[in-house]
Each structure stands twice: as C-alpha cells, then as structure tokens.
C-alpha cells in the first residue's frame, strides 16, 4: 500500500476509534432522560478523552505498519500533544459537570459518602493530571529517564483502569448492552497492545541476542558500538533507520533507547551493524562506555521512515547537527557501497572541531561518491578555513546545487536546527514533500 494511503488508513482508524463510542452511546440510549445539556456534553467529552487515553499506548507501542506510515518521532509528538489534549478534555468534563449544578464542588471527595462513580472519576482525573504534569516537566526536573518511563507506564495503566471503572459504574449511557460490549472490546484492545508490547515482543527478542564486537571512542564524546547477531541472521535495514537498544539482562528490561544505525544498510545475513551514541546522560555516559566485546545486547528494529530508499531524487542534501549526523553517515556509506553516482551535499554543524563525530569516516567516503561536505562550526579554531556559525539561509544558498529544488532533503539534529530548517527550506522553494526530518531527541 502506498505510504500516503497507509497514513490515511491509520489516521482514519484512530479518529474512528475515538469517536465511535459516541455514536454507539447516542444510538443505544433513548432520546430522553437527559439531565442537562451540560451533562451530556460532559459525558461526550469524557468518552472521547477515555478513548484517546486508551489509545495513547498504541501510538508508541511500535506497531510497525503505523510507525512506518508516519515515523516514530511524529507519532511520539502526536502522543505527547494528544495526551495533553485528552487531559484538557478530562478537565472540561469535570468543569462542565460542576457547572451543570448537579455536582456541587462540596459533594466531591473520596469519602465513603461520595458516590463510587464520583470517587473513581475524581481519582482518574487526579491521576491524569499527575501523569501529564510529570511528562511535561520531566526534562526540567532532570528525572532519570528510566525511572520516569516506569512511573509513566504505571500511571497510564492506572488512569485507564480508573476511568474505565468510573464509566462502568456511572450508568446511563454505559449501562446499555452495546456500550458494555464496546467497553469490553476497548479494554481488550488496550490489554492486547500492552501484552504485545511488554510480553510478546520481548519474548521474540529473547531468541535473538546480539553481542558487542567493538566499542570505539569517537570524536564529540561519542562511542560506536559494533554489534553482531548471535544464532540468528540479524537484520538488513534502509540507511537512516534506527533500532531500540536494550542492555538489560533480558529484553524485558524497561530501559531501552532509540539509536540510529551509523553503518551502511544492505546488511548480509549475520552481518554486523554499528550504532553511534553521544554521551548525553546516565545510559549513554555510563552503561554504553562500560560495554566490552562479548557483552550481550538486545536490538529491536529496524524502524523509521527517514531514508533515501523511500525517496527517489536526482541527488540528496543531508543537513546534520551533532550526533544527528549518524543516520546521514549511514546514508552516505550505503550510497557509496551501491556505487551511486548521484550528487550528495552534506552540511554538518557542530560546536567545535573536536565535536565532529564520524568525521574520519565521512572523509574516507569522499572519494567513493560525488560528495561535497561543509563543516559548520559554532566556535571555529584559529585558522579554520571552513564555514562558521550556524546552518542558515545564506549558508544554504552558498552550498546548494543550482537545481536544488529537485533534490531530496534529510535533516537530523537538535531542535533549533530542525526548527530553523523547517522554516528556511520551504522559503527556498523546496517542496514540503522533499523535506524529511527526524528528531534524534524524540524521547
């Protein structure tokens, strides 16, 4: 199926699953018995919010078909922003019920005198608020990612459980048989995704271990892990894709990180795959450097749609910043191995010269294809003859080929680079469909 059709299908399915309970509720309850329109509106928004929350996990549970249509970074952004939207709908649900006059603020609480559905609803709303607050303040709180991920997952299951119990006990629309059946189906879907994500997928990975062949120090406080599959053929991949690395004793270990492959694609069965990782914290700064040849690693992949294999063009412009250069190097290496003669322009931004991770590999690849490279340093050393500053419009105009509108553009780097490229590239008359971006700090 074409990528755009797949995208439309999955997006349509999502909208359908969120709104379908409203249709069933409206059809299964007689058009009488409404206490007030505010209560009906509150109910409607509550159903939508619950369906959205139940589907939140599906968005990030690595359903290959859906992730392939949009890209995991886009799905994660959608997950984050829609999660906040669901929380706002929960707040609107509560505010409408309170303003309807039927549920005075004084009647709320968790004491035994408060009706059970109200207690469950209050708890669900409080848990949702905590879930969202912890998610939006994670970076500011400098919370350990792995701890936060565990709390986030447990809170998400709690929210869905409490909200489902709230709906089941509140009666009215939820009391009808069609709604009860639908509720059971949605709960089954939620539990099924949870089971697949946390049990079946790790079980499958358990039979496919990888071993560390080499752990190499690179420029820019980075390391390249060379991994080889043990007792299975491993995988080939499209250059630019990534995989989830798990260095726990088993694949059930919660700590896992998405990392781009930095070696070439088209891997033969049993072939080695490399990942280049910058020291950005606990895991990349402590766990990764401690790996020795022979260490066991679990690799879940490949994932991602950020690849020239999916986008034909007369040439490629690769725009990278920091460790975002890793998937771009994979692209260059693959094009060189395929003896591709199309022109490639790489603009690579970094703070200092010593931060140019994988520079040696880029230089080694230069003679093997039509590759033009410009290193752009924020703080150039004395005597630096290359570009300095940032990758901006003027710099792009200096380096882009004359027929640049027909090229395919791949951008990977920190948020400021991504945001500026999303603004500048369209202003250079480059069609949106030829601009492909992936945020390496997606989680």
């Amino acid at each position: 199926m074409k990528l755009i059709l797949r995208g439309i299908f999955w997006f349509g399915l999502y909208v359908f699953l969120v709104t379908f309970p409203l249709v069933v509720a409206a059809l299964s309850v007689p058009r009488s018995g409404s206490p007030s329109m505010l209560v009906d509106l509150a109910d409607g928004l509550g159903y939508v919010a619950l369906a959205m929350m139940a589907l939140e996990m599906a968005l990030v549970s690595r359903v290959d078909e859906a992730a392939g249509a949009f890209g995991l970074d886009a799905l994660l952004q959608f997950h984050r922003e829609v999660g906040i939207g669901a929380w706002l709908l929960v707040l609107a649900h509560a505010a409408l019920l309170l303003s309807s006059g039927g549920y005075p603020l004084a009647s709320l609480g968790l004491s035994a005198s408060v009706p059970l559905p109200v207690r469950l609803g209050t708890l669900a709303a409080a848990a949702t608020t905590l879930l969202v607050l912890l998610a939006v303040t994670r970076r500011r709180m400098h919370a350990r990612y792995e701890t936060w991920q565990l709390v986030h997952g447990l809170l998400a299951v709690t929210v869905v459980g409490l909200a489902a119990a709230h709906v089941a006990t509140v009666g009215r629309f939820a009391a009808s048989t069609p709604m009860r059946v639908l509720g059971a189906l949605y709960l089954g879907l939620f539990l099924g995704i949870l089971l697949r994500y946390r049990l079946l997928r790790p079980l499958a990975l358990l039979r496919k271990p990888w071993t560390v062949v080499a752990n190499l120090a690179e420029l820019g406080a980075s390391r390249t892990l060379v991994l080889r599959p043990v007792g299975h053929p491993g995988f080939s991949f499209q250059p630019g894709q990534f995989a989830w690395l798990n260095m726990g004793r088993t694949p059930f270990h919660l700590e896992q990180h998405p990392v781009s492959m930095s070696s070439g694609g088209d891997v033969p069965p049993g072939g080695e795959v490399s990942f280049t990782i910058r020291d950005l914290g606990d895991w990349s700064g402590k766990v990764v450097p401690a790996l020795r040849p022979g260490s066991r690693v679990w690799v879940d992949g490949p994932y991602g749609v950020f690849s020239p294999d999916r986008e034909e063009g007369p040439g490629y412009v690769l725009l990278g910043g920091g460790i975002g250069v890793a998937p771009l190097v994979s692209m260059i290496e693959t094009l060189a191995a395929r003896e591709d003669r199309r022109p490639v322009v790489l603009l690579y931004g970094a703070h200092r010269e010593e931060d140019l991770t994988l520079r040696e590999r880029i230089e080694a690849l230069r003679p093997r294809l039509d590759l033009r490279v410009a290193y752009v340093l924020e703080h150039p050393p004395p005597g630096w003859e290359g570009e300095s500053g940032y990758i901006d419009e003027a710099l792009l105009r200096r380096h882009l080929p004359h027929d640049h509108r027909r090229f395919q553009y791949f951008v990977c780097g920190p948020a400021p680079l991504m945001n500026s490229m999303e603004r500048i590239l369209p202003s250079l008359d480059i069609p949106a469909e030829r601009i492909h971006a992936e945020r390496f700090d997606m989680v």
Partner: protein
Amino acid sequence: MGHRIVATIVRLVLLLFAASGLVFALAVRDPVPPGRGLPSTHRNFAEGTCGTCHAPP
C-alpha cells in the same frame, strides 16, 4: 513528518473531538421542554440521587 505539520494536525484533531462531543450532546438532547418536569428516566428520588445518572434530582 515535520514538527509543525504534526502540531497542526493535533490541533485539528482536538477540535474535531471537542466538536464531536458537542454533536453528541445535541443528538441525545432530552426533548422534554423546561418546566414540564423531570424526564421519566431521572428517577430514584428517594435515594437522594438519580439512579440513572447519579445527579441529584
């Protein structure tokens, strides 16, 4: 897919979902006009709350 495109899609989706809640409220609207008493399903007054929707009668 670009960051701004996703953000725009999210806003549109949220607007759609909020609107669907409103359409739902209109679709299930009680036809009994104000002043004609409580709807027949708004019951269980003796318990102090409506047994159907848990609102105080």
